[in-house]
């Protein structure tokens, strides 16, 4: 019996794939850094997710796509959703009752207010300015001669709050270089840029109106300093999914499943897959290999100073 729905999110810097079962539970995820929108990257994400879950492709009921590359899905998608709706739905499923989703991806920031059912009530996106997005932090990491994975921890060490006047992804780097030339501590610079970017995100949130609880998703939610700065700016704790990059793909899969079932509840009598278990970020699991029904989830453990990891 066709059992699975696949959600894919092909963003500006990464591709995500999520497979859900009849109970609409996640059975596999994959996140592939692509560098840019790429069909190959998406294919790799699909292969990884299917490989991990050990499911056969003919058991797939529908494929749903979201993200910039949503039309690049190999073979075409059965459903296409915007990132706005997909993220809202995914986050609402992970955190029932959430009312505001802030998604910071490779080159977009979105503030989405959702209703109690996880439907979009209003949304705002950054314009073409990439300030505060993944690309922006990549530039910052480069200028500070650190890597993107260490940037958050690095910024968390900063104490001073330096004035950062430009948050343009290009000019901010110029400004960082000028501050370095003046002899400022790189950690202070990193912390200050994070604060300034959080203030900017606050402006975007202001466009839709603040609502609680707030969830932060997207690749940038892995950056502990971003979580901390935004949490401080908002004056509340943020909900962070354990894997903040997959919410779009997960939401797309859920929306597709709901469309197929006419908005009905999941089939609770369906064969329950084994509970997801942690691969410890290794991306492979001997227990899962070769099994069609057993599930696997690749979850990264994230500890954020002001975020609640769920």
């Amino acid at each position: 019996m066709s059992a699975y729905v696949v959600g894919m999110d092909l963003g500006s810097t990464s591709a995500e794939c999520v497979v859900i079962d009849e109970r609409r539970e996640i059975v596999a995820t994959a996140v592939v850094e692509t560098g840019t929108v790429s069909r190959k990257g998406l294919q790799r994400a699909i292969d990884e997710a299917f490989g991990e879950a050990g499911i056969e492709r003919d058991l797939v009921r529908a494929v749903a796509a979201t993200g910039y590359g949503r039309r690049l899905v190999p073979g075409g998608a059965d459903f296409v959703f915007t990132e706005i709706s997909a993220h809202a739905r995914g986050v609402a499923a992970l955190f029932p009752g959430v009312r505001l989703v802030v998604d910071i991806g490779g080159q977009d920031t979105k503030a989405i207010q959702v209703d109690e059912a996880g439907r979009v009530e209003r949304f705002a996106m950054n314009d073409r300015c990439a300030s505060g997005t993944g690309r922006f932090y990549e530039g910052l990491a480069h200028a500070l001669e650190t890597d993107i994975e260490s940037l958050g921890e690095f910024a968390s060490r900063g104490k001073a709050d330096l004035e950062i006047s430009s948050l343009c992804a290009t000019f901010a780097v110029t400004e960082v270089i000028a501050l370095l030339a003046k002899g400022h501590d790189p950690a202070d610079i990193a912390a200050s840029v994070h604060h300034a970017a959080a203030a900017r995100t606050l402006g975007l949130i202001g466009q839709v109106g603040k609502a609680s609880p707030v969830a932060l998703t997207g690749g940038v939610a892995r950056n502990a300093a971003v979580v901390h700065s935004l949490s401080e700016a908002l004056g509340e704790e943020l909900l962070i999914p354990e894997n903040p990059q997959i919410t779009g793909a997960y939401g797309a899969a859920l929306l597709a499943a709901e469309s197929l079932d006419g908005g009905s509840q999941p089939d609770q009598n369906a064969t329950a897959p084994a509970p997801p278990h942690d691969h410890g970020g290794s991306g492979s699991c001997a227990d899962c290999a070769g099994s069609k029904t057993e599930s696997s989830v690749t979850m990264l453990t994230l500890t954020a100073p002001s975020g609640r990891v769920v």
Partner: protein
Amino acid sequence: MASLLEDKSNRLRMTGRGGELVGAYWDELFTARERGAQVVWYNGHALNPLFQAAGISWCHGEAFSARLAAQHLEGPAQLAGEEYGYVNELCSYSRTHLGCAVLTNDFGESETGIVDTVDQRELASRLPEPDFFVNGYQGCSTGQQWDQMSYRILGKKVPIFTLSLPYMFGSKPDAGYLVGEEWETATDYVVDQLEKLIEFLEVQTGRPFDHDKLGEIMSYIKAASQLRREAMALCMAKPAPATYWDWVASIAHINFMPAEQRLIDYFQGVKDEVADRLASGVAGVADERYRLYFDGIMNWNKLGWLARKFADADAAVICGRYTHQNFWQEPQLIDPENPLRGLAQHYLLCSNSQGFKTLKQAMTKDCDDYGIDGVIFHASRTCRAYTNHQHLLARVAENQLGIPTAFFEGDIADAAFYKDEILETRLAALLETIDAKRARN
């Protein structure tokens, strides 16, 4: 960029006829010098009735920039403007038109260096040099300085008249739409300004101004505008027989074309076609599922593209601030016996010159009258004046009217500031939000 498989937009046939009229108008203007006519370059409000009455050929700078952009011929003029020294953040209407001034003045190959391909610059450089300038802009400092810049480009040799027009803050206690002390005082003030402009025109032409002719011109404009408004009102029907893009296409006619019987005939044709469609159930968008309001100045590079794009998503853009709150929109104010007052009041009514209170009232009314489901805001990169109140208006739509909104970035006449993917995502999300709202209800 996504490709559109099917053109589901159903633009009015009269648009084609309208295009011929506009083309003929410009062709005639290009030969003004040969015909011995005087030429005025002007910007801002529709001062053309005064020029027509004075027997002068007129070139509206914004209109010419929009025309170049709509024909994708703006590049050479914009390059010339930039090379002359105007950065690309400057309003692209003015940048294009200033580039035309550079080309018209024939700084030419040797000085601009870049814009030296004759066939490319042909249209931009065909504008006849002005005998004088008139500026009539309010609500935007770029607009007010634009003709001053052209004046400098042309060596400060050409006379210039600047009409002073107040901004309608709407903050006096009795201020309201078409009423209150501010409205009356401002009207008197602008009438006085127009009388001074007429004196200036008399000096420039060496002839007494023909007030009777002005009255006759205004009676044509009044009749044409009435027909246009009536045709627009027919689009309150669901599905709408015509769309915003049809009204955009007729801006040129109502805003700067010569006022004569032909103008009335044109708008009669538009109204008849809309009425016919209504009677036979023909819609402006094949499968109208969403009715949208468009706030923002037009993106002229993308007129046809946007019409198809929205239609492709079953979204009928029905009305908008640019088309419905500008351009002789209150024809009852026009009195051919006393034309200056109606002229003055329409200059004050330009939505670019209105405070938030009036804009909010007008948007609310249009959304209500036309049964609007969502508002799409075009945030034009280089025309900041038109984006001033957009976030406030979005808040009104969302919080007070319960209508979802979305923004997309673009520009009036610089295609580089438009990214199709941005509109595509925002539009799809807006429509999904409308669906979600319908599901909730």
